[in-house]
């Protein structure tokens, strides 16, 4: 599957396209198929996202899993500061990134 990600313009935080809006959680990302460029252009023009780009992912029971480790780290947060990630109470989250 192809999913869209970028950063929030004001805060810089990582966001994922959920089909309607930009979500903080990669689990909400949807397959954009061949619409990636069109959605990215529209959303960036509206300043709802900054530097969006499409990535490959695989659908899992827990939701989309980005193909590249860099995007998996982006989806979680720094693996060395779990308190600052989106899953501060999940001790196994960092391992799932690798």
């Amino acid at each position, binding site marked *: 599957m192809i999913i869209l990600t970028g*950063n929030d*313009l*004001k*805060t*810089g*935080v*990582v966001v994922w396209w959920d089909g309607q809006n930009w979500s903080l959680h990669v689990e909400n990302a949807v397959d954009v198929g061949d619409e990636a460029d069109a959605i990215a252009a529209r959303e*960036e023009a509206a*300043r709802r996202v*900054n*530097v969006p780009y499409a990535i490959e992912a695989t659908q899992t029971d827990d939701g989309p899993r980005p*193909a*590249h*480790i*860099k995007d998996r*780290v*982006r989806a979680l*947060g*720094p*693996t*060395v*500061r779990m308190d*600052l990630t989106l899953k501060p109470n999940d001790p196994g989250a960092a391992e799932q990134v*690798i």
Partner: protein
Amino acid sequence: MYQYDKYDQAMVDARVAEFREQAQRRLDGKLTEDQFKPLRLMNGLYLQLHAYMLRVAVPYGTLSSAQMHALADIATKYDRGYGHFTTRQNIQYNWIKLEDAADILADLAKVEMHAIQTSGNCIRNISSDHFAGASADELVDPRPYAELLRQWSSFHPEFMYLPRKFKIAVISSDTDRAAMRLHDIGINIVKNDAGEIGAAFYVGGGMGRTPMIAPLIREFVPLDQLVTYSEACLRVYNRYGRRDNKYKARIKILVHELGAEEYARQVEEEFAHLLDQGIEPPLAELERIKPYFADPAFEAGLPTQADESDPDFITWAHNNTNPHKAPGYTSAVISLKPVGGIPGDATAEQMHLMAQLAKEYSFDECRVMHTQNIVLPHVKIADLPALWRKLADAGLAAPNLDTIEDIIACPGLDYCSLANARSIPVSQQISERFAARGRTHELGQLKLKISGCINACGHHHAGHIGILGVDKKGTENYQLLLGGSEAEDVSLAKITGPGFDEPGIVDAVETVTDLYIAERQDGERFLDTYRRIGMAPFKEALYG
């Protein structure tokens, strides 16, 4: 410490106002990201893996207590309660909001700081010896010269669009604590046979994907020609440095391709031309700067021995101090490398404490080391036990300077959008393993440096042991390097062979240190043993 004059302050204030407007235009949609990106980078604002990152310049690594307090306040008010001290003596904040960026720059300007020229193809923050003005072995304090060059290079219109970024280091001792010869220009302030003070210029060093040691270009440049010669070095580079390929655009490539002799000849030609132009600031300007770096009021007749009744204190004092030029004083290093910690990270509370201790014990001054620690440069030896106790209470008294626990690590894939692999977890595992086995001090001086990509922000080329994280078909892999040094015995590390996965690289480090212990002769550091016996035994131990 240098203090801004009205021109410095006016320039920085004007830049804050300009950037505030630029950021607002971006937020309002009047600038696209492509238009805004070079503007934010000129003010040190990157877009990293998780958020905007702001890199703040710390000129030659020197901070007053007030400045350190201000950095702590920024961490609390605008970030997530911490900052990261870098291998270029700067500080980075990892969680900045664009809408706050101008306010942060305004807060920095109030304490005579900024983020200008911490990105882009310009002359970056000038680094120096973290023991400058304090060390017993220095010829003169190099910081007035670094400050003169800072003023020359700030907003220099000719050098704002160089082929690539440009880094300068200035020292003044035979001992190199600033990785001087791994900079684009390394300057050593020296004395010639006639007893005159001047500058030796080394040009064309650097790390990154093509590491090179800077060759000596000129043995002695008189002080009243320091800026002119620097300008000549930059002009030749600006004119002939490659712009067609960013990976071949650093000055080291130009110097290497021309040859040091031919590059030096061209610099001399340009230098002669520039001398006629009279661009050198009058020596009076250097003399105006010097008093800002005058020695503080050192007391005489102080004890030269501290109370050594506590063995833990003795270990710390033995490892984390450097001989001072004034009797009864020493320079104390605050390690930001607790076992299992994140190298270079400090919480706002720790920064406030370090600022307070600098005020209380070190004439209101501290320094950022390129090894990502903090120095209190002027501490009375008699005060060391009290200082140590306060540091220990705050978890800042790791006695591990220049040991295998004192690891340089770049932010790596945990934070950096350029990285291929994580650096910090590897450093954490190594420090934990060696600490747990009680081997840290048995190994003696052992500089281990980790980079998460080939850009080498973690100085892996200069590590006695270096580790380079690479992307191997989508997974993290780590190459091991041996034999580097950033010091006066400068050398570039060599790759041992095939890389390792994350657990494997930690094992590999243990393997090579085991061999060192088995092979070392009296007084040899790891680096000395490696240089004596060569790579082959280490390869044999690693790969069989």
